[in-house]
């Protein structure tokens, strides 16, 4: 890798203004979304690249991204503080995001599927469909309707969904649900 990219913090998003840089960053693993292009076919866009705080923080932590606000570089601590303030359950969600990325998976926002992450092995548009991941807390209670709802949602896309349970010690338990026809 080697290259360090520059992004500006705007509200709770990070913007890579230079399209050339943005294209290279995007190509590293589908990081960010080109402004105004909802389903990019390739990395040949010529617009700024928008990163969310999860991927931005991940890249910053890896030393691949430097984040600026008001002309000054933000430290990781400052960026984390900002994320914790503007992103609900950032700590838990980031723990899962990082773990999935570190496993070599492509992690995209899952909001349009009603979950936290849509996870691909190859990439959006390349995989047949994503795995849908919800981040939950271990002491959370679920009931049958809750699970069927998630299942129905996932089965319209792929035949399984995943609940990620981040543990205090840092490891993450993944519960993979697959519709079972007896």
């Amino acid at each position, binding site marked *: 890798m080697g290259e360090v990219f520059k992004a500006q913090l705007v509200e709770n998003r990070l913007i890579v203004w230079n399209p050339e840089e943005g294209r290279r960053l995007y190509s590293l693993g589908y990081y960010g979304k080109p402004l105004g292009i909802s389903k990019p076919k390739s990395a040949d866009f010529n617009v700024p690249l928008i990163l969310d705080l999860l991927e931005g923080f991940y890249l910053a932590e890896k030393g691949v991204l430097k984040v600026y606000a008001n002309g000054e570089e933000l430290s990781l601590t400052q960026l984390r503080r900002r994320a914790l303030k503007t992103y609900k359950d950032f700590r838990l969600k980031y723990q899962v995001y990082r773990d999935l990325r570190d*496993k070599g998976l492509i992690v995209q926002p899952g909001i349009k599927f009603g979950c936290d992450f849509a996870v691909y092995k190859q990439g959006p548009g390349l995989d047949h469909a994503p795995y849908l991941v919800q981040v939950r*807390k271990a*002491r959370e209670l*679920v*009931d049958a309707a809750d*699970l069927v709802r998630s299942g129905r949602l996932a089965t319209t896309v792929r035949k399984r969904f995943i609940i990620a349970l981040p543990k205090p010690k840092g490891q993450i338990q*993944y*519960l993979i649900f697959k*519709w079972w026809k*007896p």
Partner: protein
Amino acid sequence: MPSLFKAKLLSNGRIVLDLKENPQAEALQARGYGEKTGEILQLQPWEALHLLSEETITVVDELGETLSFETLLERLSAGDETLWSKYLVFRDLRTRGYVVKPGFSPELPFRVYERGGYGREPSKFLLLPLREGEPLSLEKLERALQTAKAAKKELVLALVERRGEIVYYSLSQFA
């Protein structure tokens, strides 16, 4: 199986078949029903309900009174308030050709054999029934998954809807 076997509901809630009185009832055991001790085949409550509804057995109590399905259900439910849901899951799997034996704990009441696998290989699935509306902590679900994994079985969640429809999910972990 046309012959009607006579089972007895004892005052301690157990349902037993005397194999001396019902010599052909051994066939039930071969089909995966009951636990044989000496000349006695003891049936699980859900097995008794299922066999009674299929008219394979009749059940009398210790006073010699023949029990209807409703009466048997009522009497057995006194010792297990989730018996009805368990019976529904048991019946559903049984009628689809699975042999269902008792599981490891009240939370994991069934182990299930692959179709045609009973007597030839260990059971393949461990079932966790969850009734609609009943809360389950994810921690508990995770523990059930560990139990299943340690036993080299697949954990299957049976979601029992309030009118008895069942949706199944198998659970696994990331490798």
